[in-house]
């Protein structure tokens, strides 16, 4: 992984899991697969700390282990998975839009805890929801289970690989590490649980306040003594499905921007129909006939068959080639060209970045070179209708930032510079990768800046917290306006302004991430 990505991983791990886990994780990312003792020796941490850190990392699917010969277990970190931690808020928000608060909390619990059993998730989510509801109402487990089942059916959560149930026939010592297997069909199979119960509200009277020896609370009522029905079946969030969803969203919004709402709805229907059937990295979806699409359109849309056909023809003829026609049976078979669509989206992003960074004239040159593939210096000036000096300047600016590259075409076998063509071209794949790398770098910078800002203003933040706490408690006990005013004035005006600036800056940096 590149240095910038490693730095970002280290910052993320440190924020979320602490210094020890960060040290171990970064070491594993840098050096690849290593056994336990080597990690402890190389990082200089004690064996126990390394064990703890590895447990945490494995729990969160950031590190996998493998048994090698002679019983040595090696641990390998997955850098790309660590980078996905940046997207957690987005996954949670997506779950909220699709399955409302219950789905949001389920996904949040699964992401924060790595893997959990279904019963544990349901219980926790029900408790959390109950707390936010009004007094007297509680959340039923059944409702949460239903949402969970729906999430599993649409593949947003999946089962983790599990230990195969082997009979105890081998007399030898158990293997040093279990080999986890998962069957494709079982991945989304929800176990038959009868979870009956309601969420419990955490009441403050239950908590023991003082340290006086009191009669022990009746701990661990019956349900803890029972064996958990789905013991060993763990669930995790299926990140690939979320990515697929983002991709679909991107395509639909692109179509909506380019054409109109109805065509975007049609494309959304087509994508929804091929959600489960098409693997996520296929170049195009399964062919869908126009009749099927007509039947599956959402209920609100009552467009006639001819109109639908017209829309489909329009979409298929569009130069962007999001939709392609693959046959004529069933009223016309249409596919969505996923790879082409993603390529166009990437190109559009590149264009917009060039425009925002360098100006619209540069963007014109960039689009020109994109369109014509290879152009000489002179041709660029002519086609773009920009004077030579400026065109040169802009081209070099973009060249220095690696948006545009030079292609050499020699006239003579010895590549003499005076007898070689130099053509400007855009290599979309490499430019996109460069942009992604730059994004990672800027995120790392933003995190550092935010930490710096919070550290600088720690005193002020603490003071404002205390004041808020005081105000809240006084409001709870019914204080007068004057007193509240007085307390608020504890923070002077310039301090308040400083606080505001700080909040704004920190929010900005979080927002940009």
């Amino acid at each position: 992984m590149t240095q910038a990505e490693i730095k970002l991983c280290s910052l993320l791990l440190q924020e979320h899991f602490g210094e020890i886990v960060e040290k171990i994780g970064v070491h594993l990312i840098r050096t690849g697969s290593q056994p336990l003792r080597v990690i402890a020796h190389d990082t200089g941490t004690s064996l126990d700390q390394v064990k703890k850190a590895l447990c945490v990392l494995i729990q969160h699917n950031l590190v996998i282990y493998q048994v090698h010969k002679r019983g040595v277990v090696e641990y390998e970190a997955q850098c790309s998975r660590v980078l996905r931690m940046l997207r957690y808020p987005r996954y949670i928000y997506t779950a909220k839009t699709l399955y409302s608060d219950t789905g949001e909390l389920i996904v949040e619990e699964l992401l924060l805890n790595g893997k959990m059993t279904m019963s544990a998730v349901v219980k926790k989510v029900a408790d959390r929801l109950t707390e936010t509801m009004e007094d007297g109402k509680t959340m039923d487990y059944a409702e949460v289970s239903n949402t969970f089942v729906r999430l599993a059916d649409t593949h947003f959560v999946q089962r983790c690989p599990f230990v195969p149930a082997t009979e105890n026939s081998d007399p030898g010592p158990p293997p040093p590490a279990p080999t986890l297997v998962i069957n494709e069909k079982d991945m989304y199979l929800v176990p038959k649980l009868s979870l009956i119960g309601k969420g419990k509200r955490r009441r403050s009277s239950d908590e023991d306040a003082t340290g006086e020896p009191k009669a022990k609370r009746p701990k661990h009522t019956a349900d803890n003594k029972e064996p958990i029905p789905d013991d060993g079946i763990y669930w995790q969030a299926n990140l690939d499905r979320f990515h697929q969803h983002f991709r679909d969203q991107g395509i639909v919004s692109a179509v909506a921007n380019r054409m109109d709402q109805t065509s975007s709805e049609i494309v959304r229907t087509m994508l929804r129909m091929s959600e489960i059937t098409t693997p996520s990295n296929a170049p195009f979806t399964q062919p869908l006939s126009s009749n099927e699409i007509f039947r599956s359109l959402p209920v609100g849309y009552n467009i006639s068959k001819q109109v639908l056909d017209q829309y489909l023809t329009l979409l298929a003829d569009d130069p962007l080639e999001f939709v392609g026609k693959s046959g004529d049976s069933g009223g016309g078979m249409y596919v969505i060209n996923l790879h082409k669509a993603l390529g166009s989206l990437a190109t559009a992003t590149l264009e917009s970045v060039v425009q925002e960074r360098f100006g619209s004239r540069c963007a014109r040159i960039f689009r020109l070179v994109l369109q014509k593939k290879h152009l000489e210096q002179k041709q660029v000036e002519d086609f773009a209708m920009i004077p030579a000096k400026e065109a040169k300047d802009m081209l070099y600016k973009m060249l220095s930032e690696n948006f545009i590259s030079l292609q050499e075409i020699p006239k003579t076998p010895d590549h003499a510079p005076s007898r070689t063509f130099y053509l400007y071209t855009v290599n979309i794949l490499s430019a996109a990768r460069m942009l992604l790398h730059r994004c990672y770098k800027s995120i790392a910078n933003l995190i550092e800046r935010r930490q710096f800002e919070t550290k600088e203003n720690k005193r002020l933040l603490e003071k404002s917290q205390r004041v808020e706490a005081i105000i809240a408690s006084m409001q709870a006990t019914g204080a007068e306006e004057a007193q509240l005013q007085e307390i608020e004035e504890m923070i002077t005006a310039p301090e308040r302004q400083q606080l505001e600036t700080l909040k704004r800056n920190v929010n900005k940096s979080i927002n940009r991430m």
Partner: protein
Amino acid sequence: MNEMHLWADLPPQLLQDWPGELTNGKLWEADLERHRLEEDQQISSWLRLGLRVGEGQQVFLIGSLNTQAPSTMASRGGGRGRGRGQLTFNMEAVGIGKGDALPPPTLQPSPLFPPLEFRPVPLPSGEEGEYVLALKQELRGAMRQLPYFIRPAVPKRDVERYSDKYQMSGPLDNAIDWNPDWRRLPRELKIRVRKLQKERTTILLPKRPPKTTEDKEETIQKLETLEKKEEEVTSEEDEEKEEEEEKEEEEEEEYDEEEHEEETDYIMSYFDNGEDFGGDSDDNMDEAIY
């Protein structure tokens, strides 16, 4: 054409001085460079006129285009000028015309925060943006509270204090706060702590670190059975039930605390030495995650 080999062998060198700036007439390399450029220009003009150079023919211009000449001149100069002034790319093709003012040489690294020409795009605002922002902050705060956040051990103080004995060492160093499913993890990751307790079967679970006061526990137990209240007795009884690990751990924890409390007459917060107040910078930040 065998003189082509000479050109191919010469390594491309970075041109350090643009001819426009350097030529003060004193350096002969600069003269050479100017010469060569003039020759290039003449060739191109000739080519444009349609003059053809046939194979095997060599065109000798005034001032000698002969490829031998520059190298001999260079070798006379001790090889200094050799390859100097030769560009790896054709100046015209890339767009630098003759006599164009070239940008000044860079003598220092580029500034750290160069002024932006264009303002950045505004941040996402509106309901969705606000919600995602709040969500991000909340997540960061929540992650710190989870047991997965492993804090490094508090470093030992220089001098042992009396109150240390009565302070709970918090998240115990060589154990995990949560119970992973040990069946799924390699066996070597289990942290075992030796127990001095009697009749404890070797259950491979993270255990509390051995406390040296445990021997004392048992003796005090026996001596002060009558004085202890009922919950102490139940805890003792419970401890002898070794099957229920979770119960054990929790009650053991409480037992220890009460045990400590029994040894002294003060409540635990008496021994709070004020270290935590304002010193736990990490923990305080948890409440205001920006």
